[in-house]
């Protein structure tokens, strides 16, 4: 029981910080777009962690679904209809569909081979976005569209005009997605995923259809990833092929590891540290890439369990 209380305490702290963020960001030298980015990237990392941390399958190509969500929303608003919600829906649908179709081709692979295949599939989307100039804008990215204010029957949310309205919109989507993920993980299905992670062979012997479970987990993870991608595009009112690029996938993985793969909120912490660190480093030194690289190396060698992992171990000792 004590463990559960602690876990909830952590959730409470996270939500308290997120909900009050607009009140204190200015005072710590941040700005609204940065916090919004933290939440979006946090959602992306947590989506990846659903597969990586809770199913134990190493995807290094999740940027593809991030990008699909982003292009889905951008293309919809640009060409079909200027509605934030419609765009979001299309983006998520496209990402989920692609994941569902690609899934069967890759779920039989494991370890580095799985990673490599996911990267390679991600590159297909990268090149489509990169080359299909007339529609996607190619390397210049998709411009001339922006998120629209949200009119619900009872109220209007000025997503376009007020950065804080948009922040709370993102936070609401974030809450729904993370809530759903938590629910799935607590269900028997979620327990089965953890069982596969812990011992795939044993699960197989127990009669679990491992490949099917991995496929479902993959689709769920990619779907939430495309939500994050769509939000990212809405944040910038812009999307370009780099959203698909494999190095972006690597960034998501490092966020998970840095924060702690075995903890629900770990990836959010990792995303926050990564986003703020990169934002800071790239303003102070043109050689920020070296520092980011050093962070990768340091995390792998010294904090393989992530920050929350370290804290938890301290606490349990």
């Amino acid at each position, binding site marked *: 029981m004590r463990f559960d209380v602690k876990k909830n305490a952590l959730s409470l702290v996270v939500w308290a910080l997120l909900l009050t963020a607009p009140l204190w960001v200015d005072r710590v030298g941040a700005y609204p777009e940065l916090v919004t980015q933290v939440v979006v990237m946090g959602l992306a990392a947590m989506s990846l962690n659903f597969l*990586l941390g809770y199913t134990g399958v*190493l995807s*290094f190509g999740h940027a593809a679904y991030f990008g699909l969500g982003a292009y889905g929303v951008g293309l919809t608003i640009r060409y079909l209809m200027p509605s934030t919600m419609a765009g979001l829906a299309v983006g998520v649908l496209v990402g989920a569909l692609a994941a569902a179709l690609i899934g069967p*081709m*890759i779920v*039989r*692979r*494991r*370890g*580095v*081979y799985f*990673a*490599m*295949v996911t*990267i*390679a*599939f991600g*590159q*297909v989307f990268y*090149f*489509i976005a990169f*080359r*299909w100039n007339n529609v996607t804008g190619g390397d210049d990215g998709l411009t001339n569209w922006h998120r629209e204010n949200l009119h619900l029957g009872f109220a209007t949310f000025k997503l376009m005009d007020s950065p804080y309205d948009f922040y709370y919109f993102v936070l609401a989507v974030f809450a729904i997605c993370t809530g759903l993920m938590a629910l799935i993980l607590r269900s028997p299905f979620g327990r089965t995923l953890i069982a596969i992670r812990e011992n795939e062979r044993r699960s197989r012997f127990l009669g679990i259809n491992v490949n099917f479970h991995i496929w479902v987990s993959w689709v769920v993870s990619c779907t939430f990833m495309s939500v994050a991608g769509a939000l990212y595009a809405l944040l910038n009112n812009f999307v370009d092929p780099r959203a698909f690029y*494999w*190095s972006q996938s*690597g960034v998501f*993985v*490092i966020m998970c*590891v840095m924060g702690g793969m075995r903890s629900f909120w770990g990836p959010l912490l990792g995303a926050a540290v990564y986003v703020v660190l990169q934002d800071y480093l790239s303003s102070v030194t043109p*050689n920020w*890439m*070296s520092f*980011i*690289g*050093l*962070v*990768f*190396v340091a*995390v*792998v*060698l010294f904090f*393989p369990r992530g920050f929350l992992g370290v804290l938890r171990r301290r606490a349990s000792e």
Partner: protein
Amino acid sequence: MTQLILFNVANGLIIGAFYALMAIGLSLIMSLSDVINFAHGGFLAIGAYLAYTLSPYVGFWGGLILAPILTAILGLIAEKFLISRVYGRDPLYSLLLTFGLAFIIEDSTRFIWGAQSVPYDVPGWLMSPLSADYFFLTGYRMFMVALVALAVGGLFYVMNRTRLGLRIRAGTLDLETVSVLGVNVRVLRNLNFGIGIYLAGLAGVLAAGQLGLQPTIGASVIMPSFVAIIIGGLGSLTGTLLGGLLIGVASGLTAVFLPSATEAVIYVMMALVLLIRPQGLLGEEGRF
């Protein structure tokens, strides 16, 4: 039209040979150590820049010999002090490690040699076309193919005829048994990594002869190399060689008919292979 197609097939083979050189190095490391070396492209760049720096003193030929060796030494050091630490852990960690290393290498080359392209010169007589009709068969490109053939031939000899090669091949199949039989696995993996990096360094010197030499020179070849491995089948060097040549020819041919799909086509091929023969053309089922 036929002529154009023939041109592009020949051309594709030349490029494919180059991909194969990269892919074989990657494949060696992946098979024995379970490490995807994202920094492979970075080592390619190091090889190229070292050749550029050395050639004023030791000439083109000296650079061609020394630069890959020096790159391989750097590779040995990186393996010993960084990569060997994550052996036996979740492959995730080696991935992130080499990913970070790739960042550091790219940024360091930019810091040392500048962001701007630097001119790397090869001997004049290698630079001219062999004949006016087949102008794309330049001396340099033929030389490149010959050198790739030599390197791959040499590697196959090492793998099949020497004790080291035998141990590497055995280790790929069952590392534990090899270790129990008294082979020092640490040293084995170290040397194996060195061989892989040597090939990357060599590819770098060759690339610098015909591409602009700048810090991101390696980034564009690493993905095709992955695809070559997947198509050929992980664990099979012959398969990787075949995969490299195949994707070279495929993108060469696509350039004739549908230029905008030259890159995408290799990924489509990969998807097809995964659907029809998931272990790759020459790969064995059940290994990964």
